[in-house]
């Protein structure tokens, strides 16, 4: 597809919900290594709640409103670090695409840029700190470049996903600076960051959704 409409967005949340239900145990185990094992629980809970909320609201509400509903729902459903950060991301993305009828490459770039900035502001982490930000930053940059050079959405998302996957791999070399993992210091080297993994899951599912 060339652009994501409000009705697409509702189905996208369904896809994300299904994804995190499948990856629940994997994320629990991943967060368990240097954390508290809650990530799989909170992500599956919050995306399930968001998917239901946007479906209940319906496409008539429009993209921005749907994203706001998703963010607000997630904040309530799973107030963990990642739960609140992703909620913040969707709330900021909502503002960034205010008035848009559909998300083409430019709007999708604006979406992820706002998503990244919101999380950066809320979490006060920097790129290189071994957080979700390490994949959100290349996602936002790649999409902005793609938008500037007028690439179609599917191609832009494929590039963004590749960049995110590479960035996720790079988190293995980093030492965690934030959250529960930070207490484990050098022991976090060699492990991929759990939050960054969530970032890759999000963009990968979006790519597949747009490619379908």
């Amino acid at each position, binding site marked *: 597809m060339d652009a994501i409409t409000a009705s697409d967005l509702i189905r996208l949340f369904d896809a994300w919900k299904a994804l995190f239900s499948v990856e629940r145990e994997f994320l629990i185990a991943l967060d368990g290594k240097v954390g*508290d*094992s*809650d990530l799989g629980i909170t992500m599956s809970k919050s995306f399930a709640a968001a998917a239901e909320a946007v479906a209940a609201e319906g496409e008539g509400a429009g993209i921005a409103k749907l994203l706001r509903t998703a963010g607000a729902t997630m*904040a*309530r459903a799973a*107030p*963990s*670090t990642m739960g*609140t*950060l992703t909620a*913040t991301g969707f709330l900021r993305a909502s503002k960034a695409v205010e008035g848009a009828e559909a998300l083409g490459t430019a709007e999708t770039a604006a979406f992820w840029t706002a998503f990244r900035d919101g999380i950066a502001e*809320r*979490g006060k982490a920097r790129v290189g700190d071994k957080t979700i930000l390490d994949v959100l930053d290349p996602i936002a940059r790649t999409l902005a470049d793609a938008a500037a050079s007028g690439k179609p959405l599917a191609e832009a998302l494929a590039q963004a996903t590749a960049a995110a996957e590479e960035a996720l791999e790079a988190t293995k070399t980093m030492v965690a600076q*934030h*959250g*529960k993992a*930070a*207490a*484990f210091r050098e022991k976090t080297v060699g492990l991929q960051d759990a939050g960054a993994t969530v970032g890759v899951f999000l963009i990968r599912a979006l790519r597949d959704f747009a490619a379908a």
Partner: protein
Amino acid sequence: MKKFLNDPVDFVDEMLEGIYRAHPQVTYAAGDKRCLVTANVKPGKVGIATGGGSGHLPLFLGYVGDGMLDGAAVGGVFQSPSAEQMYQVTKHIDQGAGVLYIYGNYSGDIINFDMAAELADLDGIQVKQVVGNDDVASSVVGEEHKRRGVAGIFFVYKAAGAAAAEGLSLDEVARIADKARLRTRTMGVALSSCVVPEIGHATFSIGEDEMEIGMGIHGEPGISRTKLAPADAVVDEMMARIFAEQDYKAGDSVAVLVNGLGGTPLEELYILFRRVGQLLDERSVTVKHVWIGEFATSMEMAGASISVTHLDEELDRLIGKPAGTPFFQHVPA
């Protein structure tokens, strides 16, 4: 898992039901039991809110009451409450004089309190924040901003609560809270693990003859794991780290909290305090205030922490003021 509970999923809510049944001095805001507030809001007073995960009673909600806090957002076991819940508590306790958030330095809590502050700001409620980071073991000097908040937050509550009760402004209450925070240090030691109800097994394993110095109250890794040493040696090591942090001079005075993590008998806490007192005597530092018991627990974890606040005149006076909550009474002699 050896716990008195029904469905683990209901652990926190059933605990809260028990609390509301037992203590009419507290109630809840916005129809959400996890938004605990005092039933006795004081007109015009600066509000103080806290919040954090459950499993640490009497922390956090236990300090809501006269001369202490006005509200507490209650999370799942070891999980942050939501920004929405913090915001509802904030709205309920604000009396036009603004609200101070005092909570521990954990990313989930920070992110949610920040968001709650933003929401409150949209309503025109002035919010300030003081984030407890007293746990010496959790990061080195120079990186204090990375340290976890543990039992020492009690002294921050106590000083700020007394200041707010005196009718001071939000800026003043925040200044005092921040001073108490900066002058408070805690060292902990764990002997056994806790069990999170929804997980059902020990958070970590530790040998039958081992202790871990510096372990966090959710089982975060500590500084050293060694054979259990005699009580005096354990205290010596903990206090050496606390003394190294601040310049204690003969004639200085302190407030001390010897805190049980949940599974350690009170008798043992007094044995620890005996040694703390001896070490302070050696330095001619006076213990002006002392509390011994369970103030910030980690479910059934066996272990203890020692918190010391290096007093100045203002903190001495405020920490000594009366306070009364369902979980904590202070009646000055």
